[in-house]
């Protein structure tokens, strides 16, 4: 594997200051596994000290068996052209984490708003977590793996007595 000097420097910098799990996935791709308490400090560090100025994506992965959500922050550095991926786990039943919108501003605010809508993750300190698409939604967070949306739709929208809609019942 080709590892440039800069990537090693970044990893050394991070491990010097934080107790985290790091690795180089391939050239110009670094991943970091961090406990959720250290996330804000780590994000501040990579932005201010290492020049990762652009949060390009924030995603959530649901692990129902582990009972955890995995939050993944993809952060890009324009100077080094390196993508760093910060992963952290939060509790699935009560998902709460500090917002990064103070660090990356508006772009992270809208990402967090979407993840709040789809997974129900509460980002503490985010100024606006109102739904983007699911107005008046009162069901469970729709992207959770244990949400059976077909069953939900049958109960919410369809009637067995309706000629057209009875076809939707009893098949999967």
């Amino acid at each position, binding site marked *: 594997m080709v590892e440039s000097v800069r990537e090693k420097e970044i990893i050394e910098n991070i491990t010097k200051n934080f107790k985290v799990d790091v690795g180089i996935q391939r050239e110009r791709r670094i991943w970091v596994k961090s406990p959720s308490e250290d996330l804000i400090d780590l994000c501040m560090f990579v932005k201010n000290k290492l020049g990762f100025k652009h949060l390009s994506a924030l995603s959530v992965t649901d692990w129902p068996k582990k009972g955890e959500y995995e939050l993944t922050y993809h952060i890009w550095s324009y100077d080094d052209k390196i993508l760093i991926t910060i992963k952290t786990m939060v509790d699935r039943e009560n998902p709460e984490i500090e917002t990064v919108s103070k660090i990356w501003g508006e772009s992270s605010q809208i990402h967090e708003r979407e993840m709040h809508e789809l997974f129900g993750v509460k980002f503490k300190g985010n100024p606006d977590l109102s739904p983007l*698409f*699911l*107005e008046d939604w009162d069901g469970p967070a729709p992207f959770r793996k244990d949400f059976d*949306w077909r069953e939900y739709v049958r109960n919410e*929208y369809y009637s067995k007595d309706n000629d*057209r809609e009875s076809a939707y019942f009893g098949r999967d």
Partner: protein
Amino acid sequence: MSEESPQKKVMKRLIKAIWVFNWFNSCGFCELVPLVGSRWDMERFGIIVVGNPRHADVLFIAGYQTLKSIKRAQRIYEQMSEPKVVIALGSCTMTGGMYWDSYNTIKRLEDYLPVTMYIPGCPPRPEAVFEAVGKIFKHVEEMK
């Protein structure tokens, strides 16, 4: 010659040409776009797309409607002046279509808007759209 009611006189004067307002989600506009082109060319028959619901006689509604977008469609419908007609284009609009098991699309359009005509198909044939528009004229003709 039979007497024409004042309503019919007004309607005949109004419905010379169909002015439509489009409310299209997702692939919705692609379903009507063959009519705009030169092959079917809806303007030959006086069907013109207007930019403001207040000018429109007909609301064309196409594509799957989400819980959020249907509210906007209702507001557009309320802005249209009487007499007004709602035509639903395509299967997604009517029943959810391939999104029948999506938690976020509406499944019965008639619960939300007073639909005058459904044009099924994915996409509907342009001829079917013309037939639906022709039925509006026929409806006026048959008025007493």
